[in-house]
């Protein structure tokens, strides 16, 4: 059946700010869907509050609403646009829940909007655990013994039946928030209480424990002709008990015989039919008892998910795109497989390599939280690697993750290592080290329940490390030895560690032995058909499959795994670079290791290398492709760190040079430059020892901003107000950071107004693109501060000064592309805090606020275009105010106080647009799901909140300003607490709107007052930009 003609206009919901459990994968799926539906001729409307996404680019949808994903705002969009259909399955749990709310409150029916992709019944059956269990019972698929309870008493009663440990899962929560495994009765009661609260329907599933069982996922697709195909199976390295988002996973399944795999496949097909997902993709999770093969279905998601993004990248089958086409009536057999072009999408991919995914965590950002993994997801990003064997694949993934999973294990005793075998993200490192020390596979299986097949594979790696030393001097190794060693996935660095040479020495010897990688193709069909999509990975084999062309090539390095401080914004920038350079006639080559992204869609760049972003892997590609240049400045720190090494090895870095980057990063040279240009800086000194730190502190005077040198996202950065605080700080830093890093101490400009400036420079002309005013004062990491464009509290004169300084600095440094400068204004003096000659995380937000694609401009500058050619010579004056607000993941980290500081903690952002700055702020708050109350009780704690109090009072709030608090008193509707009390945590957990800084309190009060009685209309980004 061809596409439906009765539908003209389709509404797609995004997933809002990036958060744990819901990340860039939904930008990938949404972008694919928008492109596919637009190409089919539909008018596509998008609502998403997240400006950092590619999907919210004004070119992608016909109308893009950067508005909060709430029932109220989406209803207004529907009223205005009157779409025929709503496709809710591509925006994660957020979109699915929102669609259900719009159905339940009658909006969809009233305004004649058809839900396509998954119907209401299917969503309910898939999501409501009681209905799901009943459905599974009906088709004879076993589920975990469990019971949905609505009270603690009920839970305790059922617990007697199933014993302990017991697994607790609250209904309808994101990434399993509030869930957990209870080993004791006390834990059981605690989790049940919390879960009952977190669940919007106040119910929680209590289940028998299947801890330690094998865990599998199947990605399933179905069309309206009831054709069902499995895209891939995924096997978890970490057994049951660890959320699949936090597990190392491998595709395809490794330890299932055909009989067992077909059993899961049969069950999956029965499940998707019974749940009634009419069209699109679903993810079904199974648990298999390793002792007898008993299969239990854990859950199914009737929508595109993080795993489906992984499955798409792992197989080359674009699940989200196909799901969108199926939703409008196509059948799988009618959609061609992009890769082979001659065969249809109605088939099951088969692969001839192994894919490993390793999640990336941020526990170091939340001191005091135990890093044991459980059923609640806490990873912030992930990497994927492709190799011809598991060993090659897992070793590539381990070096892609850019986190130290070997964690000083070499120096630990066997006892200490054994103590690290509980589920935690460094466990694989401990396992490998123990294998090296002779621990047996059986012992490790007993301790971890990781399948022995995986353990045996890791043992082959450690055995090979031994054998490496028996091969004679490395300079005598013949090609074959090198090939076999590289096939095991060893990096040059690791080989160097074992034989005692540097990475470059190993590289030289390897190349001399002609052991260089070949590049194979991801083609969905194990080479059965010819592949037309250039999606490659490296391995050490005989035949290379890259088709070379004569076009000039540019390599663009992606940003690797998402993490706090380096997220989807950089994917946005690199994808824009690809588009700009394609338009300019170049062949674009993308290198990245993050499966959640648009950049790793084989449809994005002319050529995709799914490879670790390390010197070795990138340089191999550079030598293979011989590009006219490599762009490193758009993917954040990850590619930037590689720039100098690549250049030294002969790569041509285009855009801002590594020297310029170094000049701006190196404190001494940057200070000298500022002095020469007469730019004010907070005074600062570098201390190599604690003693020196105390001396410097005396010289500079408190308060001080302290941080170790060379850190990302404000790691371990803190304001200290006294010698004793400095002492505590130094002790903590030295305990946490390896070695003794030097400590930077800067005067802290307390209460200063902070600014972020993005500037473009082509070497001869520099133009400020936008000046952002931070809502929070200096001291809060710029990545965590809300901000607004254009500025509200900056005088024209200061604005001109800031603009002039930024442009002068860019020219002086010789920036070719983007630079981000941070200022603090105190006593009418702009102090420069730092300058980063690269794309910053503000690029997508500023681009949308001013209506200019900055990353595209930067990429064009890198290949020699001038700002004049680009047509960007004036700082734009936007017609509206755009506020960025951040999403913070505190809820996932038990006991952590939700306060802001110099260390970045946010995972994502929202944007609010309005002609009024305070209403823009108001929208941005709703965009991060902070539902500001319009009346009720406000509790204000802290000094200097009098103005806030009076504004809220006039707005009709019952305000208590610094009252004496009685224990157990009810929470207010709005909590403003600048004292950092425990009440903030309580408010967070109870879902009460809270504010923790004085400046945000004022903005919040003004925003609430301004929004009182006003119906906030919706205006699309395209409409704003036309104004």
């Amino acid at each position: 059946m061809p596409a439906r003609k009765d539908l003209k206009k389709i509404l797609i919901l995004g997933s809002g700010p990036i958060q744990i459990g819901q990340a860039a994968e939904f930008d990938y799926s949404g972008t694919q869907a928008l492109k596919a539906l637009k190409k089919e001729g539909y008018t596509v409307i998008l609502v998403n509050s997240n400006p950092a996404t590619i999907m919210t680019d004004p070119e992608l949808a016909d109308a893009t609403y950067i508005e909060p994903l709430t029932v109220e705002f989406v209803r207004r969009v529907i009223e205005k646009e009157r779409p025929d259909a709503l496709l809710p399955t591509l925006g994660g749990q957020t979109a699915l829940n929102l669609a259900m709310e719009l159905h339940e409150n009658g909006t969809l029916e009233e305004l004649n909007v058809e839900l396509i992709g998954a119907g209401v019944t299917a969503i309910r059956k898939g999501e409501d655990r009681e209905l799901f269990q009943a459905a599974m019972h009906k088709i004879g698929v076993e589920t975990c013994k469990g019971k949905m309870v609505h009270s603690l008493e009920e839970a305790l009663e059922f617990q007697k039946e199933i014993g302990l440990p017991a697994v607790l899962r609250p209904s309808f929560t994101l990434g399993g928030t509030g869930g957990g495994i209870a080993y004791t009765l006390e834990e059981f009661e605690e989790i049940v209480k919390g879960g009952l609260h977190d669940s919007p329907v106040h119910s929680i599933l209590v289940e028998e424990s299947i801890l330690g069982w094998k865990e599998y996922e199947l990605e399933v697709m179905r069309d309206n002709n009831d054709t069902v195909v499995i895209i891939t199976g995924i096997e978890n390295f970490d057994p049951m008990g660890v959320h699949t988002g936090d597990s190392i996973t491998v595709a395809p399944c490794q330890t299932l015989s055909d009989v067992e795999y077909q059993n899961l496949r049969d069950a999956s097909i029965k499940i998707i039919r019974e749940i009634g997902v009419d069209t699109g993709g679903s993810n079904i999770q199974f648990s298999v008892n390793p002792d007898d093969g008993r299969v239990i279905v854990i859950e199914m998601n009737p929508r595109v998910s993080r795993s489906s993004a992984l499955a798409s990248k792992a197989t080359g089958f674009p699940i989200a795109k196909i799901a969108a086409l199926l939703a409008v009536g196509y059948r799988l057999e009618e959609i061609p497989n992009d890769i082979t072009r001659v065969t249809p999408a109605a088939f099951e991919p088969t692969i001839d390599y192994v894919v490993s995914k390793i999640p990336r965590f941020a526990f170091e950002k939340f001191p005091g939280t135990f890093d044991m993994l459980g059923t609640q997801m806490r990873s912030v990003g992930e990497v994927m690697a492709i190799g011809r064997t598991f060993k090659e694949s897992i070793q590539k993934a381990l070096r892609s993750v850019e986190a130290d999973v070997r964690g000083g294990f070499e120096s630990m005793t066997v006892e200490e290592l054994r103590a690290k075998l509980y589920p935690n993200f460094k466990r694989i490192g401990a396992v490998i080290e123990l294998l090296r020390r002779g621990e047996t596979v059986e012992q490790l299986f007993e301790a971890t329940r990781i399948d022995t097949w995986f353990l045996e594979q890791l043992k082959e790696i450690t055995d090979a490390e031994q054998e490496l030393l028996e091969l004679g001097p490395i300079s005598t190794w013949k090609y074959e030895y090198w090939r076999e060693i590289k096939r095991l996935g060893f990096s040059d660095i690791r080989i160097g560690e074992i034989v005692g040479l540097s990475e470059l020495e190993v590289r030289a010897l390897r190349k001399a032995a002609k052991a260089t990688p070949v590049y194979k193709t991801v083609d969905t069909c194990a080479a059965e058909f010819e592949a037309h999509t250039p999606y490659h990975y490296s391995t050490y084999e005989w035949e290379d499959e890259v088709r070379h062309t004569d076009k000039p090539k540019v390599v663009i390095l992606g940003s690797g795994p998402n993490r706090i401080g380096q997220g989807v914004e950089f994917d946005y920038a690199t994808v824009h670079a690809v588009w700009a350079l394609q338009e300019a006639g170049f062949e674009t080559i993308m290198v990245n290791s993050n499966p959640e992204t648009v950049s790793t869609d084989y449809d994005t760049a002319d050529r995709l290398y799914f490879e670790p972003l390390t010197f070795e892997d990138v340089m191999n590609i550079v030598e293979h492709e011989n590009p006219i240049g490599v762009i490193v400045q758009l993917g954040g720190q990850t590619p930037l760190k590689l720039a100098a090494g690549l250049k030294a090895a002969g790569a041509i870095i285009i855009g801002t040079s590594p020297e310029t980057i170094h000049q701006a990063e190196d404190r001494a040279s940057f200070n000298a430059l500022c002095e020469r240009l007469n730019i004010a800086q907070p005074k600062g000194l570098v201390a190599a020892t604690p003693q020196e730190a105390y001396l410097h502190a005396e010289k500079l005077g408190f308060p001080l901003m302290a941080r170790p040198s060379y850190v990302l996202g404000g790691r371990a950065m803190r304001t200290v107000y006294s010698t004793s605080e400095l002492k505590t700080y130094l002790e903590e830093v030295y305990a946490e950071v390896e070695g003794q890093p030097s400590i930077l101490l800067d005067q802290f400009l307390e209460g200063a107004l902070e600014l972020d400036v993005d500037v473009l420079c082509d070497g001869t002309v520099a133009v400020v693109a936008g000046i952002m005013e931070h809502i929070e004062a200096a001291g809060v990491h710029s990545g965590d501060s809300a901000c607004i464009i254009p500025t509200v509290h900056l005088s024209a004169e200061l604005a001109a000064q800031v603009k002039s300084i930024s442009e002068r600095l860019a020219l002086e440094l010789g920036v070719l592309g983007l630079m981000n400068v941070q200022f603090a204004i105190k006593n009418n003096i702009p102090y420069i805090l730092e300058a980063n000659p690269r794309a910053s995380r503000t690029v997508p937000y500023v681009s949308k606020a001013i209506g200019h694609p900055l990353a595209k401009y930067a990429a064009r500058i890198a290949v020699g275009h001038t700002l004049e050619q680009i047509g960007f010579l004036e700082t734009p004056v936007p017609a509206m105010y755009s506020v960025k607000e951040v999403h913070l993941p505190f809820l996932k980290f038990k006991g952590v106080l939700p306060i802001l500081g110099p260390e970045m903690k946010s995972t994502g952002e929202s944007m609010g647009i309005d002609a009024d700055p305070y209403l823009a702020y108001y929208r941005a708050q709703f965009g991060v799901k902070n539902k500001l109350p319009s009346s009720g009780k406000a509790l204000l704690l802290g000094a200097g909140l009098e103005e806030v109090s009076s504004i809220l009072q006039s707005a009709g709030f019952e305000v208590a300003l610094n009252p004496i608090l009685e224990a157990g008193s009810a929470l207010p509707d709005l909590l403003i607490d600048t004292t950092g009390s425990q009440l903030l945590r309580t408010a967070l957990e109870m879902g009460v709107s809270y504010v923790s800084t004085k400046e945000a309190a004022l903005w919040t009060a003004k925003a609430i007052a301004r929004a009182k009685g006003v119906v906030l209309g919706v205006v699309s980004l395209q409409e704003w930009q036309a104004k």
Partner: protein
Amino acid sequence: MIRKERAILALEDGTVFRGYAAGYHGETVGEVVFNTSMTGYQEIMTDPSYNGQIVCMTYPHIGNYGVSIEDMESNRPYVRGFICRESTESYSSFRAQGNLQTFMQAHKIVSISGIDTRSLVRRLRSGGVVKGVIAHRSHTHPEDAYGEFTVQEEAALVLKAQNYPDIDGRDMSPEVSTELPYVYPTMVKGKRVVLLDFGIKHTIIKCLAEVGIEPIVVPATTSPTEIMALRPHGLFLSNGPGDPSAPKYAHETAWKLLGLLPTFGICLGHQILGLAVGGTTYKMKFGHRGGNQPVKNLLTDKIEITSQNHGYAVDADSIKDKGFKITHINLNDNTLEGMAHERYPVFSVQYHPEASPGPHDSRYLFDRFIEEIHAFDGAVGTPVQKAFTGRLGV
């Protein structure tokens, strides 16, 4: 892990892949084909249809879950040799009764690993199937198993590959068919069906038994008279190796019995039925071998993901005026996948509804067969009309 005994794969076109020895230490020659299934290596090895062939698995890790008696498709492996990227010795499965290496050694299956299998597959895809030799270094140089083959040795092996007789034109059923008839044990007394064994897979017999058939497996050369003497309720033509046009006796049997009994054919059985009515078969460039082939049922419009293993196919045009209708086609290349007689309860499929390995989407065909058998009163010596018009595709 790094140093291993050498082995080479020499192809008739002169290409030599240098890898490492696996399985039984020796030398073997056969037609090299590839299979894209990611699971089911043991079923593939023991499927008699692979007689005479060296199978290259496209999935790189083979042996992961060991071997189990339950996964035997016949009483021994029939592949002539086995190729994979990585032959794993360690395995993990509660079902396993041993490891693949030992299994291959016990059955003298010579195997090679560590070669660029993807490159081999691309070669087979573009140039078609070729003959090849796998040779282990220890076979000729037991004193120096890690050493390299000389150019002369490699050339000699290429020559050996060239001299191996083509599968084309060869009737291989005698090499794989049962010597004596036997009755397969069933749980309940069912309908008696004669299974002509051209190299039948065990799971086919099991699937037939499961729908209520009492299978009597007979040698490929059993005559129509002998078959009818068993007073069967149905006839089944099995899968098997070799060139389908070679066993003329089988075409004759199928032709003589056409319409007298409800009849079902799979793979070679399907081809024999096509040839019996005057259709033609042809050798495909590299065949269909894997578990992900999309097949469309033209009657229901439904799509089945199927398991396949064939190097020959029935020419779709050749059976159109022979009383047969096309019921199934392959969506990848539009080749004929299934046909049914317009009047008689006779139908066949090119693919493997019993799967094993592969998806179970097509097991409904066994139900169609037993339905026809139930509606059949017993052979009368004249053609019978089908009971359910439309159910079989026409």
